[in-house]
Every structure is written in C-alpha cells, then in structure tokens.
C-alpha cells in the first residue's frame, strides 16, 4: 500500500506492459470475434486486467468493485442475454453499410491519435501520489467523500439504479393482454385451420444425447422441421442428421446381406461400415 510512490516502481512497469498487452488484446478480440460469447469472454478478461490496474493505481475499492460488479455481475448479465439470444448466433463480420468500416477505422485511429496527442502535450508532470489521500484507508477516504461531498450524486445514483431495475422489468416483462386460450380452444383452432391437427411430433432419432436439436426423420428419411422447437430453428441450431442416418441404413443392409450370403463374399466390400461412424465423428 505504501508502494504507491509518486513515480511508479519498475515492478509496476513490468506488470503494466504485460497486462497492458493482454488488455489491448482482449479489447481487440472483443470487437473481432464472430461469436458474441467469445467477445464477452475476452471483454471479461480485459476488465479483470483493468481491475488489476485499479489496484495498482491505489484504487483498491474500485479494483474490487470492478471485479465484483463488472466481471461478476455485468458480464454475466451479458452472457445470460447472449444465451437467451443464441450462443451460436454469430453475426457475419461482412460489412453492410458502404464504407462504414473504413470510416470507423479512420475515425478511430484519428481519434486515438488526437487523444494521445492531447495527453502527450498535456502538462502532466506533477505526481503527488495517493499516499496521504489513502492514509486513512482507501475505502474510508471514498466513503468520506461520497457521504459528504458527493452525497447528492450518490442519492441520485440510487434513484437511477431503482429506475433502471423498474425499467428493465417493464421492458422485458410482457403483459398478457387477452385471456389465455384453453387447451380446448387451441385444439378447436387447430381443427379449424386443418393444418397439423395432431400434436407436434417429438424430435430426436438415435437419442445418444439430449437431442432436442435433432429433427425427427420422415419415412423417406428427410428431416421434419416441425420436430424441433422454433427457438432452435430460429437460431439455426438444428442438426441435420438425415444424410448420416441414410448412410447407416445402407450400411446395415449391407452387413445383413453379408451375413446371409457368406459364400458370395466380395473382399472388396469388406469394410464400408465404419465409414459412416467415422464421418459422423468428423461431424
């Protein structure tokens, strides 16, 4: 804690350079990754690094808050939403707006240069470190300030948070405007419109794992979209196994044939069987 002299120690320098690179890498990954999940994770990484930097800068309380609130709560909220929206819903990085990307890059670079230049020619020579500020302990110091000087702001943030919570509820919670239709009504409706009178067929052939994402096959072996839940269809997470199952069917017939007609054995046709499983494995 006393290590926070005005000029930082060389150890801190090392730490800075290493973690700084990590942070930048994380940031870059955040905007580069195709899948939201990966972006979220790399962002979390960056945040943790930042938490460390806070600590290094003598903002112990903030460092902890950073870890708990950001990396803990907010990023998890992100992940949660990502799950809700679709883990694998990767948006193509192909740009749709004409010239947007170049504009963005150019502006970004220019802006960065501006900022850095600004910092550069700003007279930031004096370092009276946090030594005496943190003398009574960082948290106490913050508390003293928050509850004296910034008390109003603090109160207002409280109000803000409550409002935010309420707003989130209002936005996400969908009001049911009309009476829920009973099972009878629904069945009647089904009959009336004539399509799909029966309940939807269940998914999953060859249930070797939780196969809600594998559509059931129609007699001709083609997959039936109806069998998977709309959400999955929406996300395009339906796994089509029709081709594979057909292949396996063929292999089965092959083998039975072999067992029956042993005399007419053709060595050339010896091992086609595992072909299918292999390709499945590749899948």
């Amino acid at each position: 804690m006393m290590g926070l002299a005005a000029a930082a120690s060389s150890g801190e320098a090392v730490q800075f350079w290493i973690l700084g690179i990590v942070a930048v890498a994380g940031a870059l990954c955040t905007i580069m990754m195709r899948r939201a999940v990966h972006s979220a994770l790399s962002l979390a990484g960056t945040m943790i690094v930042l938490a460390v930097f806070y600590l290094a800068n003598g903002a112990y309380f903030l460092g902890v808050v950073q870890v708990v609130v950001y990396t803990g709560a907010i990023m998890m909220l992100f992940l949660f939403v990502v799950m809700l929206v679709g883990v694998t819903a990767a948006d193509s990085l192909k740009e749709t707006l004409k010239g947007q990307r170049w504009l963005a890059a150019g502006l970004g670079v220019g802006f960065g240069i501006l900022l850095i230049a600004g910092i550069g020619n700003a007279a930031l020579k004096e370092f009276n470190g946090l030594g005496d500020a943190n003398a009574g302990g960082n948290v106490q110091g913050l508390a003293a300030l928050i509850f004296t000087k910034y008390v109003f702001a603090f109160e207002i943030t409280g109000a803000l948070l409550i409002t935010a919570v309420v707003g989130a509820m209002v936005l996400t919670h969908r009001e049911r405007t009309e009476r829920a239709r009973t099972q009878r009504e629904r069945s009647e409706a089904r009959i009336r419109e004539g399509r799909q009178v029966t309940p939807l067929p269940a998914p999953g052939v060859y249930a070797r794992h939780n196969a809600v994402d594998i559509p059931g096959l129609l007699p001709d072996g083609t997959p039936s979209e109806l069998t998977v839940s709309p959400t999955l269809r929406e996300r395009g997470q339906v796994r089509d196994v029709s081709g594979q199952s057909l292949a396996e069917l063929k292999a089965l017939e092959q083998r039975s044939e072999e067992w029956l007609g042993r005399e007419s054995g053709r060595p050339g046709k010896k091992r086609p069987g595992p072909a299918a499983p292999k390709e499945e494995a590749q899948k």
Partner: protein
Amino acid sequence: MNPVYYLYLAALLFTIGAAGVLIRRNAIVVFMCIELMLNACNLAFVTFSRMHGNLDGQIIAFFTMVVAAAEVVVGLAIIVSIFRTRHSASVDDASLMKL
C-alpha cells in the same frame, strides 16, 4: 515508470471500443464495446486521481460504474424485447428512424 502510460492505454482502449461500436452489428457486442469505453474512462479517472493525489477521480469512476450498470440493465432489456419482436439482435435491422 510514468503513470501517464495508463492514460495512453485508456485512450487506446477507448478508441478500440469506439471502433467496435461502429463496426459490429450485433447489439450485444455493441454494448460490450460501450462497456469497454466506459472502463477506459474509468482507468483514466483512476490514474488522474493518482496523479492529483485526491480521490475524486475514483469517486467519479465509481459513479461511472453505477451508471454503466444501470445502463447495461436497461439496454439489455431493450435488446431482449427487440429480439423478441423481430428475432434479431442486429442494430441494422432496427432502422425505423429512416425517413
């Protein structure tokens, strides 16, 4: 080592975040980039507070976090409701502002 480097880092992160906001179409990712920018600001604040030797910077950073939290909550809620209605989290699809 000179804490000014923290500022440079912050600037860099901020820029990257901004670029991300401009480039990505997935609303969630856009939000993450915004978070990134906020964090960059926080880093700058913290550094400044260290330079000037008083805690106000940290206080501001603290408030920023709170605000960020609130913003994320509401923002994500919006994203979810939009996704519900139009089955997409792409910011380009929500272009109703166009004349």
